[in-house]
């Protein structure tokens, strides 16, 4: 069963712990004097054991399809020693106890849940288990070290005494969590590594799962926005007389950058919006176009205007003396997220407290939402619903802020709900970018250096300016440069191109807002790097697998690539088909795809995607498989059709008729092999996406001989069968 916590449930918050503390960021145990030993109780913010032996696990990470509800609970349950059948998972009210161990606030981003909680979640389970043993030891008057935990019971193997956790939890909650617990070895795992059925699936096949859009409460009004044509626009004046006459419409609230019509239900609000008359001030830059942005990116990349991110040896001289220089300029378009559930947030403002119900990836940022309506950060209560996709869009807090402002102005609880067109036109887009990549080769065919000039808009200059220090944003260069940015963020490239390397980034910001899109940096940088390596292989007349094996820095990457070549039967596609290949390292994971297509003139059929991935350890292999496929389909949609353009301040795309999505009939067969090489554990929500575009472009090149240097393929006249 899956539930969303409806109140604080009286959880006692732990002592304040430093953000980033790995082990004890979980809050200290609550001591509930009133609870009766036999009736179960709350152990800490994460765990409650009910009188009938159910183990309720709080799962604070956003469930947006990646299966985190289940895999997170698997990690805790493994060490806690409970039967999976006892486990019940719920979405807790946001709390500092649930701060992400790396970021220091509650968030789900960068394929970083399992990786960050890999030790902490298992530790919380193990600590709870040891505390339950201590409780049994105290009650039975024996040394707890001799007791065993088995399937939700503490057992004394000498006497045969046995007590269910429910009878021990109140006593156990009195102890401090023990430190330095030995976690189980992989060969002892019973729950981790198993394809446990997902806890959220039953509610998702009968319509009962609650998403943000489904939130209900007495007196709730639906608020639908009218936006200015440009992002820079502001409201000048509003004539709402006709709108207020529409049946069901209750109020009109003008914010600085939108006018909301509030009604009983979405349809009335939409009708009201049609009847609104608003005069806008388009603002400075209100007539900007993507063409202008790309002209600036191209110029900056061509002229090498960027700030240097990596400089090893004298690349410019090395290339000047090279027998041959491969020189490729690649472009990546802006992309919208198009989460399946249109963007929404529900808020109820009172002078004492702001309550929000929201499908969010960033509960820990809701203090800013409180601030936007004049409350303290501690005066917000955030309930997380299921997310109908996150894709990075739901890391932004623009919707909760709008909902809070509108609720405050209207004096009623409000659900802000955007249409699909609103969603596409008011996004924080995957940044458009241009990269010029060069490699020099000496007369013996040896690569002597790599030079990369990248230009595009910076996400962090907007979202977290301190991370864009020195005009270098790591999300513009990760995957291409091997360096540490001035803000101290390490970036990585899987290849070594000989003795010299130089990577520069020219930040060009514009009125087009940019944000985090599934796989962030890697969504465009893998396209640049892998498309470049495929061109290098073609120009040097080398096999793309052999060339990569010679350039890769790590044995791990070579292992994945070799296995991919074997699994996909690289070089030997089925008769009439062609293949393309790419591999990328991101979020601690190495993942490669071979995409096999059939081509008829400029019409292509996606036949098969073969993927090999190393995640170190797979907590739930079925989920890993699902995420590889899911990430690949996101990548296919983007590579085929994904492009957002702005003309004179307005976004040209709107609904799914102008922003196309892959459908079932067009979907290829997938074959995924999961390696578990046993190193650091990797993330899996995003790595399936980055290698898709370069692998597909490679296949199209192999079929047509045409160098594909721009996306989407549709803009080059290609389409799907």
């Amino acid at each position: 069963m899956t539930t969303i916590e409806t109140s604080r449930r009286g959880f006692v918050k732990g002592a304040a712990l430093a953000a980033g503390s790995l082990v004890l960021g979980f809050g200290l145990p609550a001591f509930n004097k009133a609870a009766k030993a036999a009736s179960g109780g709350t152990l800490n913010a994460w765990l409650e054991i009910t009188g009938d032996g159910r183990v309720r696990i709080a799962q604070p990470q956003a469930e947006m399809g990646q299966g985190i509800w289940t895999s997170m609970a698997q990690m805790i349950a493994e060490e806690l020693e409970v039967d999976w059948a006892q486990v019940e998972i719920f979405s807790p009210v946001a709390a500092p106890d649930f701060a992400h161990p790396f970021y220091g606030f509650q968030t789900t981003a960068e394929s970083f849940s399992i990786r960050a909680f890999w030790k902490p979640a298992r530790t919380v389970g193990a600590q709870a288990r040891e505390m339950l043993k201590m409780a049994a030891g105290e009650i039975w008057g024996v040394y707890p070290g001799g007791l065993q935990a088995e399937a939700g019971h503490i057992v004394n193997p000498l006497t045969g005494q046995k007590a269910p956790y429910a009878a021990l939890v109140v006593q156990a909650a009195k102890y401090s969590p023990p430190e330095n617990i030995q976690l189980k070895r992989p060969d002892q795992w019973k729950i981790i590594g198993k394809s446990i059925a997902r806890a959220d699936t039953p509610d998702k096949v009968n319509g009962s799962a609650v998403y943000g859009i489904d939130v209900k409460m007495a007196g709730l009004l639906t608020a639908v926005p009218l936006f200015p044509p440009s992002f820079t626009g502001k409201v000048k004046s509003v004539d709402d007389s006709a709108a207020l006459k529409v049946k069901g419409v209750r109020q009109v609230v003008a914010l600085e950058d939108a006018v909301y019509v509030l009604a009983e239900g979405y349809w009335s609000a939409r009708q009201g919006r049609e009847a609104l008359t608003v005069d806008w001030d388009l603002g400075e830059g209100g007539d900007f176009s993507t063409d202008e942005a790309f002209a600036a990116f191209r110029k900056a990349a061509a002229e090498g205007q960027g700030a240097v991110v990596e400089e090893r040896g004298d690349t410019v001289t090395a290339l000047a003396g090279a027998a041959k220089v491969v020189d490729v300029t690649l472009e990546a378009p802006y992309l919208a997220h198009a989460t399946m559930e249109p963007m929404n947030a529900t808020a109820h403002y009172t002078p004492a407290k702001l309550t929000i119900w929201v499908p969010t990836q960033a509960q820990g940022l809701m203090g800013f939402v409180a601030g936007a309506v004049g409350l303290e950060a501690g005066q917000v209560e955030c309930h997380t619903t299921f997310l109908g996709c996150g894709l990075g869009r739901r890391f932004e807090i623009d919707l909760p802020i709008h909902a809070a402002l509108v609720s405050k102005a209207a004096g009623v609880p409000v659900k802000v709900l955007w249409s699909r067109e609103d969603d596409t036109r008011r996004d924080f887009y995957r940044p458009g970018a241009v990269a010029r990549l060069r490699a020099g080769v000496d007369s013996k065919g040896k690569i002597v250096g790599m030079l990369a000039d990248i230009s595009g808009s910076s996400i962090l200059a907007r979202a977290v300016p301190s991370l864009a220090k020195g005009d270098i944003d790591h999300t513009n260069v990760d995957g291409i440069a091997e360096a540490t940015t001035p803000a101290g963020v390490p970036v990585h490239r899987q290849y070594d191109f000989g003795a010299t390397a130089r990577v520069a980034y020219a930040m060009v910001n514009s009125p087009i807002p940019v944000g985090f899109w599934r796989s962030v940096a890697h969504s465009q940088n893998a396209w640049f790097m892998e498309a470049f390596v495929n061109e290098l292989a073609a120009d040097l007349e080398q096999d793309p697998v052999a060339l990569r094996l010679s350039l890769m820095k790590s044995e791990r990457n070579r292992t994945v690539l070799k296995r991919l070549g074997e699994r996909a039967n690289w070089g030997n596609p089925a008769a009439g088909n062609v293949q393309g290949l790419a591999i990328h390292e991101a979020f601690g994971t190495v993942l490669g795809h071979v995409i096999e297509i059939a081509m008829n003139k400029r019409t292509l059929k996606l036949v098969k995607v073969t993927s090999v991935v190393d995640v170190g350890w797979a907590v739930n292999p079925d989920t890993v498989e699902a995420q590889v496929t899911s990430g690949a389909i996101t990548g296919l949609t983007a590579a085929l059709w994904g492009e957002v353009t702005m003309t004179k301040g307005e976004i040209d795309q709107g609904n799914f008729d102008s922003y196309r999505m892959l459908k079932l009939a067009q979907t290829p067969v997938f074959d995924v092999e999961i390696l578990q090489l046993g190193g650091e554990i990797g993330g899996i929500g995003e790595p399936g996406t980055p290698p898709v575009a370069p692998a597909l472009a490679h296949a199209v090149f192999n079929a047509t001989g045409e160098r594909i240097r721009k996306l989407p393929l549709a803009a080059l006249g290609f389409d799907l069968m």
Partner: protein
Amino acid sequence: MSVSLKVNGVDHELDADEQTPLLWALRDVLGLTGTKFGCGIAACGACTVHVDGKALRSCVVPIASVVGAEITTIEGLSEASDHPLQEAWRSGEVPQCGYCQSGMLMAASALLAKTPDPTDQDIDNAMTNICRCGTYPRIRAAIRQAAKNA
């Protein structure tokens, strides 16, 4: 204005404009939120329901046009979440974010009602809904599984 609708076997009198799309009558008036909004222009299928057994995209169906019809939503697909497709969806772990799945199940159940043993081509033709998470391979497999079990 009052409009009568029969949803999941129950008659309702709705105080709503006749042009209100069925989707919003279901969600906002009757509180049946299993049927989802994705596009509002019949492009994604998240809002698919059955009208007299046929799969329809309820976001573009005015309620006036379905008076007297038998309307079935995901909440009425089965008594106890035990339609063969729901079983197959669970055993095949089809949903990811799950948002499109009500519509997918309604489209698939209309297909199986008419074509109990569909070919791949039948599945391609009937399943034109969008899943942003890309659960398509598992949807195809689960429809095949359900057809086998039925």
